C-alpha cells in the first residue's frame, strides 16, 4: 500500500463525490435526494480515509511531510469542515464548494505524482503545519466566497433589486472566514514560537496576513454599526478581498518578498 494505489482510491472517491454533487444540485428541486448526496459524500470520504490510514501504516509515520501529503490532508479535512458548516449554517452550496475544493486537491495530486518525493526542511516538520495551512486555506476559500456574494449584491443593486439577505449571507461568510483567518494567524504564531523562538517577525507574508485581518476587521465593525449603509459595506468587502489576494498570491511579486520564509518558489 503506497502512493501507487492512489489513482485507484482517489478515482473512486472522485467518482462518488461528483455523483454526490449531482444529487445535491438536483436536491434543490427534490429535497429528499439530499440524503443520497450525503451517503455518496460519506462513502467517498470513507474511501479516502481508508487510503490515508493505510498509507500512514505503510510509511510508519504520519504522512504530513511532503507537499503531496499535505494536499492529501486538505482533501481529507475540507469535507469535514464543509459538513460542520453545513450542519450549523445550512448552506448547501457551501457543502458543495468544500467537496469541490477537496476533489480539486485530489486531482492536483493525481496530475503531479512526483511531488510526493519533495523534501521538507526541518522547521516545516511540525504538528502545526497541517492546522496552520488548513485553516488558512479554508478561510481564503470562505472569504473568496463572501466576495462572490458581494459581487452578486453589487449586481443586484445595479439592477435595482438589492436584497438585504444577500449582504447577511456575506456577513455570515465573513464571520466564519475571519474566525478561521484568526486561527490561522495564531496557529502560525504558536508554531513559529516552537520552531524559531519568535511568534511574530513581520515577515512579508505575516504583514499581509495582518493587513487582510485588519481589512475584514474594518468590514465587521462597519457592518455591525452601520447596518443600512450597504453600498459602503460592499466597497469595504471588495477592498478587503484585494488585500487578501495580495496576501494569497501577490506577496511573491513584491519587492519585499525575498526576505520571506513563506515563499515556496526556489
Amino acid at each position, binding site marked *: 500500500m503506497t502512493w501507487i494505489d492512489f489513482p485507484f482510491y482517489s478515482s473512486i472517491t472522485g467518482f462518488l463525490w461528483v455523483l454526490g454533487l449531482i444529487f445535491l444540485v438536483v436536491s434543490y428541486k427534490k429535497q429528499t435526494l439530499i440524503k443520497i448526496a450525503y451517503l455518496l459524500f460519506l462513502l467517498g470520504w470513507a474511501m479516502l480515509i481508508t487510503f490515508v490510514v493505510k498509507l500512514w501504516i505503510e510509511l510508519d509515520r504520519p504522512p504530513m511531510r511532503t507537499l503531496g501529503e499535505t494536499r492529501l490532508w486538505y482533501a481529507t479535512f475540507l469535507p469535514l469542515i464543509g459538513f460542520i458548516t453545513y450542519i450549523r449554517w445550512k448552506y448547501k452550496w457551501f457543502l458543495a464548494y468544500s467537496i469541490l475544493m477537496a476533489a480539486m486537491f485530489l486531482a492536483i495530486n493525481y496530475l503531479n505524482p512526483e511531488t510526493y518525493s519533495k*523534501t521538507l526542511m526541518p522547521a516545516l516538520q511540525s504538528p502545526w503545519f497541517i492546522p496552520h495551512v488548513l485553516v488558512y486555506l479554508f478561510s481564503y476559500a470562505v472569504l473568496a466566497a463572501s466576495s462572490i456574494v458581494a459581487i452578486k449584491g453589487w449586481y443586484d443593486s445595479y439592477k435595482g433589486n438589492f436584497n438585504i439577505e444577500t449582504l447577511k449571507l456575506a456577513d455570515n461568510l465573513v*464571520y466564519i472566514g475571519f474566525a478561521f483567518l484568526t486561527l490561522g494567524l495564531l496557529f502560525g504564531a504558536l508554531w513559529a514560537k516552537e520552531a524559531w523562538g519568535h511568534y511574530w517577525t513581520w515577515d512579508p507574508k505575516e504583514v499581509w496576513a495582518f493587513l487582510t485581518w485588519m481589512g475584514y476587521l474594518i468590514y465587521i465593525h462597519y457592518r455591525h454599526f452601520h447596518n443600512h449603509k450597504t453600498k459602503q459595506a460592499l466597497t469595504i468587502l471588495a477592498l478587503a478581498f484585494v488585500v487578501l489576494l495580495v496576501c494569497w498570491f501577490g506577496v511573491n511579486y513584491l519587492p519585499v518578498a525575498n526576505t520571506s520564509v513563506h515563499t515556496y518558489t526556489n
Partner: protein
Amino acid sequence: MNLFDKNMSENTIKFQRKLWENPWGYAESFFIGFGLMLTGFFLEVFAGSEHIVTVSYPYNIFILFGYILVLFVLYKKFADKQLIRWLTKVPASISSIVLITILVMFMGIIPQVPSTNNLINNLGLNRITTNWAFLLILFQFLTCLGLISIKRILQFKWSNFGFILNHVGLFLALTAGMLGTGDLQRLSINLYEEKPSWIATDAQNNQLELPFAFYLKDFVIEEYAPKLALIDNSTGSISQNKGNNLYLVEKDETYFFNNFEVTVEDYLPNAIRFGMRYEPVNEIGAPPAAFISVKNIENDSIQKGWISSGSFRYSYESLKINDAYSMVMTIPEAKKFSSDIDILTKEGERISTVLEVNKPFKFRGYKIYQLSYDDKMGKWSNLSVLELVKDPWLPLIYLGIFMMIAGAIYMFWMGNKITKNE
C-alpha cells in the same frame, strides 16, 4: 426646544451637526487620527526614533497596571467627557484600524532596511514598527480597545462573551507583547562536540556568562538523498523539466528529463573516486555518488558515468550528455538535525536532553532551541548553534492568544447573529 424639535434634530443629526459638535463622528476621528500621524512623522523627522527606550522590569509592570488603572478611572469618572465618549465609539476604532492598516501597508511594500531614498529614511517608513506615527496610532487603538473592553466587562452579559474574549485577548496579546520586549532575552551559543560551553552572545554581540554550561555529546544530521538535476551548460542553471520537481536519487529508479531517460544504476551515500570509479568509504567529507545511464529518446544513444554532489573536501562531478546539457547531483538537504547535550549546573546537576528543530527544551526560564550548525561542513559539522530565549511575558501573551482562539471558535459558531436576527 420642545420635545418634537428635539426628536427631529436627533433624527437628522447627521445633516445639522457641525464639525466638532457632539458626538464626534468619522470626520473628527480621521482628523484626530491624521493629526496623530502627522505629529508622529514630525517627531520622526526632527527627533528620530533611535532613542525610543524599551522599558524593562519592573517599570513595564508599573506601566501595564498604571495604563489599565488610568483606562478604568477614565471610563468610570470621565465617561461623560467628549473625548472619552468618542474613544468608546466605533468611529474612533474604525479610524485607528484604518490608519494602522495604512501604516502597515508601507511595511508590506517598502523593505524594512536602510534605504537610499532620503524621504523614506527621514520619515522612518523603513522602520514602521518603531515609527512614532505608528506608535501614536497604535496607542490610540489600544486605548479604544482597552476602554471598550472595560465597558463590556463592567456591563457583563453572557451575550458579550465572544466580544470580551476577542477584545480583551487582543488587548492582552498586544500590550504584553510590546511591554515584554524590554525583558526579552535572546542569546545564541556555539557548542563544539565534546567541549563544555557557557559563554553566550546576545543580539548586540556582547558576551555573557550563563549560570550553567552545555556539553555537546553528539551532533547528528539526517539527510535526504541528493536530487538529480538537468542543467543548461551555457548558463549553469537548472533546466526546468516542465515545472516538475527534482527527483531524489534512488538506486534502480528511472526518471525522465525532457528527452532523456535517466536510470540510477548504483548509488553510494559516502564515496570517493578511485581511478575510474567511486568506492564506498567511511571517511569525513566523503560525498554521495551515483552511477547513471542516460538514454537520449530521440536517437537512442546511451551515455553512462559517475556523478557526485561533492562536499567541503571533494569537488563535484557532473556528466555532460550533449553540448547543451549535463546531469548533476544536488547537495543533500537536511532532513533533521539534533544535538545530544548535557546541561551542567553550578550545583553539580547534569540534565541530558536531545534538542531538535521544532522541539525546544525548557530550562530555568529559558527555552532552548536548536538553531543551526556549520552548513559548509554539512553532516560532518562539529558545531551546533543553540538559541536561548527568555520571555517572561509569554504566559500573558499566550493568555491573550488563547482567549482569541476561543473567541474565534465562538465567532465561527455564532456567526453574525446580530445582523441575522434583525
